[in-house]
């Protein structure tokens, strides 16, 4: 297997982008990544794109070819493949792109993630997202994602004494970081009281515990490490990649306070990278709800099970903390265009490792981790990157 580097990143603004279509978004992100890498269209061997439900959100399927087409790559006739894994679609697309370069089949690969979510109204987006839950055993009975994560939160509070305030701290921190990210959906400082007093969504979660419905896209350019120097001096190498699955429905799991998919995927990635959780300098984790970030830092091994809430409260995951988590603002403040999220996380880590993250730069970051979840934890993809 060959070593693989990320040589280019591109990201759009995230938010309610009423004047940008699905194809505008992905071609903008792809073009930015291509310019960042300094490659040309003819250099590209393959294209992967992660997207969760363009069929329901904008009525468009056949996304692989569409993205190649709208990016002006149609005449190259490259293989173009869409990957779907709910909210982990982006992370999975990155892993497939990584495998294809590592295997030697492709050299230069573009991998993107995109979702255009605000063309549907109100509860329709919630219904579309609920397709990532178990239709027969969960969604059919009226459960939506806020409901599922609310059950996890309740159990976590019961088992480990995690408090509402600790969960709220996740949102407060991520909004603080989002203020420093020009591409973030929200640029608004919030307080613990704001979170607690915002409208109830699914008890105990309130509106400000939940990530928003966003439009956005991100893209990366991958190359074999040996060729990476041709394009850039700041090489970010993928040193670990892991993916795991779990039961689709929450009730199929032994313990709903642990996402086994995260534990297994990160175990693979740490093993391949030859590092331990404490070696991670910066992480982008899947905080679709505040409780999800607490689960993530526990299941990734940054803290012991049950201590996530306390760690957040004590500032361990702040920008100046021991392991800064979600310097981009995370899904909560940066926004969560589901298919784009996994790629956007990797783009943030590349910027952090290159030292190009501006005001939200984590000091001396050398090893970074991305953690992308699908559904309530039935899929997880973890990548570890190092600047060399």
């Amino acid at each position, binding site marked *: 297997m060959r070593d693989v580097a990320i040589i280019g990143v591109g990201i759009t603004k995230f938010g*309610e982008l*009423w*004047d940008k279509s699905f194809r505008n978004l992905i071609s903008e992100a792809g073009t930015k990544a291509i310019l960042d890498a300094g490659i040309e269209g003819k250099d590209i061997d393959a294209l992967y794109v992660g997207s969760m439900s363009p069929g329901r959100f904008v009525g468009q399927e056949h996304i692989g070819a569409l993205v190649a087409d709208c990016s002006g790559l149609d005449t190259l006739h490259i293989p173009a493949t869409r990957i779907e894994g709910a909210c982990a679609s982006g992370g999975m697309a990155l892993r497939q792109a990584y495998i294809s370069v590592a295997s030697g089949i492709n050299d230069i690969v573009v991998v993107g993630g995109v979702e255009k979510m*605000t063309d549907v*109204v*109100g509860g329709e987006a919630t219904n579309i997202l609920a397709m990532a839950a178990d239709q027969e055993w969960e969604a059919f009975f009226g459960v939506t994602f806020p409901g599922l994560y609310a059950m996890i939160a309740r159990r976590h509070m019961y088992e480990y004494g995690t408090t509402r305030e600790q969960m709220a701290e996740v949102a407060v921190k991520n909004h603080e970081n989002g203020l420093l990210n020009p591409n973030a959906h929200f640029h608004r400082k919030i307080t613990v009281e704001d979170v607690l007093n915002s*409208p109830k969504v699914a008890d105990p979660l309130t509106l400000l515990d939940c990530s928003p419905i966003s439009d956005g896209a991100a893209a990366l350019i991958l190359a074999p490490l040996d060729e990476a120097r041709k394009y850039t001096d700041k090489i970010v190498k993928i040193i670990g990649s892991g993916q795991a699955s779990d039961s689709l429905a929450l009730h199929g799991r032994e313990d709903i306070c642990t996402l086994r998919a995260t534990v297994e995927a990160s175990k693979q990635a740490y093993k391949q990278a030859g590092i331990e959780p404490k070696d991670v300098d910066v992480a982008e984790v899947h905080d679709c709800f505040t409780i999800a970030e607490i689960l993530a830092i526990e299941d990734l091994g940054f803290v012991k099970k049950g201590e996530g809430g306390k760690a957040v409260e004590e500032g361990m995951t702040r920008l100046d903390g021991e392991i800064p988590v979600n310097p981009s603002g995370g899904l909560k403040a940066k926004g969560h265009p589901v298919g784009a999220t996994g790629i956007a996380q990797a783009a943030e880590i590349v910027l952090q490792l290159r030292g190009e993250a501006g005001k939200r730069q984590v000091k001396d970051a050398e090893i970074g981790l991305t953690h992308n979840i699908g559904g309530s934890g039935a899929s997880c993809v973890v990548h570890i990157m190092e600047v060399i």
Partner: protein
Amino acid sequence: MMNIGIVSYGAYIPMNRIRIEEIAETWGRNPDDIKKGLNVFEKTVPSPDEDTATISVTASRYALSRVNIDPKDIGAIFIGSESHPYAVKPTSTIVGEAISAVPELMAADYEFACKAGTAAIQNCMALVRSGMIRYGLAIGADTAQSAPGDALEYTASAGGAAFIIGKEKVIARINCTCSFATDTPDFWRREARKYPKHGGRFTGAPAYFRHIIGAAKLLMEKMKTKPEDYDYAIFHQPNGKFPVTVGKRLGFDRKQLEQGLLTPYIGNTYSGSSPLGLCSVLDVAKPGDRILMVSYGSGAGSDAFDITVTDEIENFDRDKAPTVRELMERKRYISYAIYAKYRNLLYWE
């Protein structure tokens, strides 16, 4: 320049009111959040025997009572509404018959969400200017629909205003009018559907704000005016917040908006919204007062009007019909149960 404008006007709003508390508590929502979020405290509710036709008839009779005009001289009646009682059969003929303006009458119903009433004013102006009619009656009226539990339920209300447009004894001259329209699907109701749907926040920036600001700027450019040239400004009022925000963005202050801002206490009367605001301003206006009115209709478009009150208003019998304030003060509060009965929300076989 021919002096074309408003010869008389009349307003009507039903006397039933429902408080925001009553609706919010029914749905388990915090009333203070809603009152603060929308700047609306109560809204009007039509009685079972009130509809767009009755509201239009009353407003028209009030308009006629203030002037000495033979209804037979009214050559056109246009009614803008999104709650015409019939899908097919005009409201305008009902009104024409009720005020004895038939049979030599151009009659038509208009629909453009909340701005069809101001479109009616524009068309009456054109017909008067061309000499095809002596007077035109332009009406904006609604008994707005909202699905139970929807955000619209806090504001969708009932009311209307009628304007006699002509060139004789004009009390408020319309100096200029222009429109701004695009295909923007922010709010709609499909054929045969009982309740409208809307695009949430999409109804804000790309819809309401873009069109009102677009039309207002276009008008002020044409007239070479600035916000401070106007004594009063009236913007469409889907809630109590949007008109204040749009006014601020355009450079108007709260004082210019106050007299025409009715939504906090009557709700959104849809096609009646900015026309009722104009009636409220005309209730107190003095010769020389300058008024800017901009309507908004989802789908989407805005009509802007530059209006100057003339000396004729001194000879005008304003007292012959109730003012908007008087209509607002004439009220009785109803419970959500009565509201449900009046609005046909109860179901039985």
